[in-house]
């Protein structure tokens, strides 16, 4: 793997479960020492992405209202093909569709602190 180091990385987290979304945002904010965007539905996230500079990484639950994770990823990748999209789910049946649709990572729930550290080590800082 090539070295990665995204300065001033911009990350967005999309999940309609407030507890989970806040937890993921807290871990990532701590790791990267930057603000982390968070949205409770796919449509709100897409509206932000459409009107602003794309985040470097989006981490979205697949089963969210508005646009689901797959729909959001398709639009996001069309606008910003070089940026990373990680799909999250508690349903194992979503793993293969995530692979087929071009997700950069599949994050199985329940998500742990170590999983999120690995996200940072893989996509934000890596020697």
């Amino acid at each position, binding site marked *: 793997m090539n070295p990665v180091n995204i300065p001033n990385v911009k990350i967005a987290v999309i999940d309609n479960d407030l507890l989970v979304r806040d937890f993921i945002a*807290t871990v990532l*904010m*701590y790791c990267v*020492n930057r603000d982390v965007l968070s949205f409770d539905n796919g449509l709100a996230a897409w509206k932000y992405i459409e009107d602003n500079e794309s985040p470097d990484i989006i981490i979205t639950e697949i089963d969210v209202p508005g646009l689901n994770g797959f729909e959001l990823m398709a639009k996001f990748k069309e606008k910003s093909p070089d940026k990373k999209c990680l799909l999250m789910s508690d349903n194992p049946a979503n793993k293969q569709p995530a692979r087929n649709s*071009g997700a950069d990572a*599949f994050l*199985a*729930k329940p*998500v742990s*602190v170590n999983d999120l550290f690995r996200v940072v080590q893989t996509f934000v800082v890596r020697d």
Partner: protein
Amino acid sequence: MIKLGPASVEMRAMSEDDVFSSRLKLLIIMAKAYLRNCPLGNYRKKAIIENANHVFYHSLQLVSESSILKDNGFEPPADIVSREKTSEEHLFHQRVQLLAVMAKALAEDRLRGHFRKKALTDNLNKICETLIFKFQIRDVNFLKVA
């Protein structure tokens, strides 16, 4: 595509308890990273304060739910949970709440002096003994850059 998280058979929705235990683990890592002089930027401080607040209030809620049950005569049967265990759990939650207060203090630059850091270290060690939680700073070397 990389796959992170539990194996397919262990996948499930995250409960409040999952989030609490993950946040507690994060709080321990935050405190240990501080004791090992990992730099603290503004957003890291904000994340520590947010996390400490969540852990503190969730722990408080767990303790008060337990005492409300007891106050209303719902003492757990002796063969399921011993009084000693209940007392240990109570003490554990007191330590967790203390850790949250200490974490907030360190994020606000109020945790200064040798003995305060020693108290933080002792408290972390006691909590980790209970959790059997092992953590090594090399696991999070990336935190050395803020």
